[in-house]
């Protein structure tokens, strides 16, 4: 059957593999972000397009330059830079000057990702640090919000809630559809839920993180709502407003910066949820999703360490 010139390949088992790989997974994440992208473009128009394009292009170019400069193999194909850029643009105000957006994106890729060792090595979620960096550097531009479709300057729903200016709060259905002021990709709950469900269906994210994250926020705000007399409207308002859904489905489920154990993911979600409620109700900012996830990123190694699974048939797995 075989001759000397027709040698067999000898490999170590297993000899078959699932078709999943990193580029495919990144493509799935991009696909899952598509509904939110379309909503953002529809509601906020050309300025939003400018921010999105500048973030993605800046992320791509920064990735390429970093790989070149560090003498690493150029494997931009994993599209993780595009995901970072897109995620960052989604949590920026639509009217942000595009050079600021590009700067934030470059910061995320160069400082947060590559200076920590590149793909798989970063401690913090690059997109969220990019946002935190921009908020610290350009606080005015980063809190300049506009109304969807007409672009008139206004406050975000959470801003209205925080400042208690007497301005009427938007109806829950508006939060669900996305016809409120806010970050480009974060206003439409339904669009984010569609994308999140797709990621769950494809097995790229674990249900434990979004469920524990959102569940914690719901429970805590329900308690506050009951005390304040806001009823069921109050926790639902918190669930649907700000960057919570985007954070729960796309940021807190980031593979690299969150725990690898199942119990760890639940703790991570609960921690994020508690911090969000704390910042929203007691902090100086109206919104706290980005900071809550970043703070939990810091304790991820600790969570992993203390939530090791028990090894089958034995004691504690303490690697």
């Amino acid at each position: 059957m075989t001759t000397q010139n027709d040698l067999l390949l000898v490999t170590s088992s297993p000899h078959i593999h699932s078709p999943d790989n990193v580029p495919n997974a990144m493509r799935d994440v991009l696909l899952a972000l598509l509904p939110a992208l379309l909503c953002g473009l529809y509601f906020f128009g050309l300025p939003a397009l400018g921010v999105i394009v500048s973030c993605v292009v800046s992320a791509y170019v920064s990735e390429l330059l970093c790989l070149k400069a560090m003498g690493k193999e150029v494997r931009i194909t994993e599209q993780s830079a595009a995901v970072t850029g897109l995620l960052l643009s989604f949590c920026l105000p639509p009217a942000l000057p595009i050079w600021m957006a590009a700067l934030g994106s470059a910061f995320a890729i160069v400082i947060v990702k590559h200076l920590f060792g590149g793909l798989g090595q970063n401690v913090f979620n690059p997109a969220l640090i990019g946002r935190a960096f921009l908020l610290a550097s350009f606080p005015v531009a980063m809190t300049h919000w506009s109304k969807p479709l007409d672009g008139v300057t206004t406050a975000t729903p959470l801003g209205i809630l925080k400042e208690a200016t007497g301005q009427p709060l938007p109806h829950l259905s508006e939060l669900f559809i996305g016809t409120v002021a806010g970050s480009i990709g974060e206003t439409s709950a339904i669009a984010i839920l569609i994308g999140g469900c797709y990621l769950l269906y494809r097995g790229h994210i674990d249900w434990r993180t979004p469920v524990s994250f959102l569940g914690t926020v719901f429970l805590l705000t329900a308690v506050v709502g009951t005390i304040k007399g806001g009823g069921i409207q109050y926790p639902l308002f918190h669930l649907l407003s700000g960057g919570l859904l985007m954070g729960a489905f796309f940021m807190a489920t980031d593979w690299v910066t969150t725990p690898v154990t199942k119990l760890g993911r639940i703790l991570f979600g609960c921690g994020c949820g508690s911090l969000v409620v704390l910042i929203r109700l007691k902090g100086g900012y109206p919104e706290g999703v980005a900071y809550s996830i970043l703070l939990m990123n810091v304790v991820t190694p600790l969570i992993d360490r203390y939530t090791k699974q028990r090894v089958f048939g034995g004691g504690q797995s303490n690697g």
Partner: protein
Amino acid sequence: MSKATFKGGIHVTGHKELTSQATTTVAAVPDKLYIPLSQHIGAACAPLVHVGDRVKKGQCIGDVKNFVSSPIHATVSGSVAAIEVMEHPGGSFVPCIVIENDRLEEWHESIKAHPDPAQLSPDEIRAIVLEAGIVGMGGATFPSHVKYSPVEGKSADTVILNGVECEPYLTSDHRLMLEKSDRIVAGLGYIMKCVGCRRGVIAIEDNKMDAVAVLQEAARSNPAISVVVMKEKYPQGSEKQLIYACTGREVPVGGLPIAVGVIVNNVGTAAAVADAVEFGIPLIERYVTVSGDAVQKPTNYLARVGTLFSELIAQSGGTVGEVERVISGGPMMGKTVFSPDVPIVKGSSGIVVLTKPTGQSRTEYPCVRCAKCVDVCPAFLEPTSIVKLAKRNKWDEAETANVMSCIECGSCVYVCPAQIPLVQYIRRAKQAVLAGKAKAAAVK
């Protein structure tokens, strides 16, 4: 009916329909048979015959007086043409007795049916199992008489027959269960008697409900034997996962099934025990699946030990397409061979011939901590963390991370989107840990 299973594991496309429906073909016996002197875990046999000797079918032609070993038998009548070193499907090179088939199919005088097998004592059954050269036929090839020997301070209450067959492509156990259900049930009875167990369980995955029905019918007369339906999941057939699914007991780390009162055998082993006890026939033939996308006519065979892989592939109509790999066993845990000219041994459940996979070549990406390996690991390890240690030669830390508990099922590698050869790194770490222990022992 609720289906038994374990935690972790993966779903793999079975490709079992290629061979599961057709009745087993009795393979043509070739002119020359190559019988390795080592077809089991333990000491290799010394040849009992010389070149030129005439041998008869079923004659013992190799043996050694170690406890952990198993004799080998001539699988045809003929003459010893040579005793030479050749490739073994397990990946090593071992001496083989080459028998030239005289096509007389003459049985050796020692092969006699037992007049009253029901009267045999446990010790007598164990002696017959030893003489018949019976080893674990699921692939591990552990000598069965050793498994049936009493261990001080431990006793078994359950014998589990493994009819799970969770490896893709393989259907030899499936066909055996359909075609020889009475032999399996009889063999299980003898094993239970031999080890003094009152409970027998036959475990079958739910993708073989026809076999479940046939075995339930065959076991109807014996209330001590039950058939358990398992969820289709890889590696359901792995010994420790199987015991957990059937009994809820976890074999302790580093322990054997007997530690939780269980003895596990393959269904094929039980059928071989029945043939040995009742008819005195040693283990000289077995069911073998020949399948894979490169095989013209995938088929199940009843083949003599010593038949070359290449002979069976040729009997299946040869190959189609560009053959890349020939695997002894299934594609998840089987071993690729250097050449198809290797013999079927007692543990050969299948031959899987695969063409080159289409699409991109596999490149290793950095670990992205997706934790899919952690989610699927049936030993509850963190493969990615262990591999990070192994890559830096941190063997002590790998040992603390329980690297030795890895069952090498390969589920982590199968799912890894970064395409990291996790289990390969883990194997290296296990070897290093063992080498370190051996060195420490030598120093003492």
